[in-house]
């Protein structure tokens, strides 16, 4: 690691005044940043700790939820409003990492953790277009079981690893950001970028921007929602495929639906096509099957991840069937 300075910011203005320095990085829990610094992938010379900025979780006037960026992942999952009103969000967070890491990780850091694969973290020996643009991609033709099947580019096929962000994508969350030019709000589904020919650029944040909060609007489907994560071991592993979904059914037809996938794409993958195919139609297994097939029609999986197309299909159908109550 490079020599470092450390400063715990006590106000947003204080953090903004220091974050603009190109060599500075914001520090949440450090579970991603400190790890990547130790591996020589990230090399900041100044850390601005933002965990003393607001991390409160509160209901909004319009009936949604506002979560301060410094809220720890475990505090969000344990919050009574999240557990009762947004079960898919509580369960998505609880599906991620371990209890220790969830106690450390902040909401801001979870949103900003790097889209990554093992080769990206192997600075000593692996080529990686994300780490060094133009150097090549070791995963192509290498070990790619954990990689993405949709939204990829020839330059990078890594997945976005967050579980929490998958639920936030399905819940139409908005990110509140402070920057040099003032405050702005970015829909979560637009926040993360597909790799294209610049896999090193992963979000819409500019250097010096700070995430202050995540806002979840009132949702018609959040109360009847679920998160299911399929992985190589039952706990403490990244997703092969995960699904966040909320569904409301009236007289046998789909009144409203939200679906997002994790583990299959370089960003939390909101399934807009599947939702459009389902809305207003019958809430049947056949319709769920057809919708997910339409969503994944453009999938181009690398060889070892080809199984994910079928796994994503089965996982979504199982979750929607359960939410529709038709398995009861």
């Amino acid at each position: 690691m490079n020599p470092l300075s450390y400063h715990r910011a006590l106000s947003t203005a204080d953090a903004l005044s220091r974050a603009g320095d190109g060599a500075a990085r914001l520090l949440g829990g450090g579970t991603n940043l400190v790890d990547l610094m130790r591996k020589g992938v990230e090399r900041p010379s100044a850390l601005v700790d933002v965990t003393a900025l607001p991390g409160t979780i509160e209901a909004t006037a319009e009936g949604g939820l506002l979560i301060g960026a410094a809220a720890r992942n475990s505090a969000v999952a344990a919050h009574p409003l999240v557990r009762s009103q947004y079960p898919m969000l509580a369960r998505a967070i609880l599906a991620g990492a371990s209890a220790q890491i969830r106690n450390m990780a902040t909401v801001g850091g979870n949103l900003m953790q790097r889209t990554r694969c093992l080769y990206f973290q192997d600075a000593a020996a692996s080529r990686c277009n994300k780490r060094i643009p133009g150097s090549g991609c070791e995963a192509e033709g290498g070990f790619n079981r954990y990689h993405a099947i949709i939204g990829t580019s020839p330059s990078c096929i890594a997945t976005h690893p967050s579980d929490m962000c998958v639920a936030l994508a399905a819940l139409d969350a908005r990110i509140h950001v402070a920057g040099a030019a003032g405050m702005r709000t970015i829909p979560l589904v637009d926040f993360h970028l597909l790799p294209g020919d610049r896999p090193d650029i992963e979000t819409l944040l500019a250097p010096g921007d700070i995430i202050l909060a995540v806002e979840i609007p009132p949702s018609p489907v959040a109360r009847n929602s679920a998160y299911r994560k399929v992985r190589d071991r039952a706990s403490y592993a990244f997703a092969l495929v995960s699904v966040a979904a909320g569904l409301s059914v009236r007289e046998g037809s789909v009144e409203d639906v939200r679906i997002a996938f994790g583990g299959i794409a370089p960003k939390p993958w909101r399934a807009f096509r599947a939702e459009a195919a389902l809305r207003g139609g019958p809430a049947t297994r056949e319709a769920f099957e057809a919708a997910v097939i339409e969503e994944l029609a453009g999938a181009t999986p690398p060889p070892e991840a080809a199984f994910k197309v079928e796994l994503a299909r089965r996982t979504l159908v199982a979750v929607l069937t359960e939410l529709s109550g038709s398995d009861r």
Partner: protein
Amino acid sequence: MAIRINGAEIAVPDDARVSLLGLLREQLHLTGTKVGCNQGACGACTVLIDGERVLSCLTLAVQADERSVTTIEGLSGAGSHKLQDAFIEHDGLQCGYCTPGQICAADAMLREIAAGVPSYITADLAAPARLTREEVRERMSGNLCRCGAHNGIVDAILQVAAERTA
């Protein structure tokens, strides 16, 4: 600038790169806390900060400034902790390398359960969670044991939990 470690005020290292794990083991010689993977994947370095379980390998010592750290040495104090006795009774260890992390994690986990916090496998997220064998396995998944003593570890934790609620 000071960190309270097992009750003693310790100066924060000048070098911000020093991890909490490095401070504990190499500067304070509190070697109960173990180094496993040094990358967040095994739980051997688990300690408590303000009573909550965290990984000391991914925590910079300076992040713990003004906070209270408890290691296995602090938990067991002069004698032994109930969890330590139960681990021995149930063969919850073989080589013992993962054990300090397991005990710190279990100590905090029992408080999380008492507070009603759910896990990924809790069926009803809105209701207070109950401690079953499956819940212990899920909640302790952040602590690996290469000797495969997990069954004894779960038995030991369940016994201590039963004694506390009795």
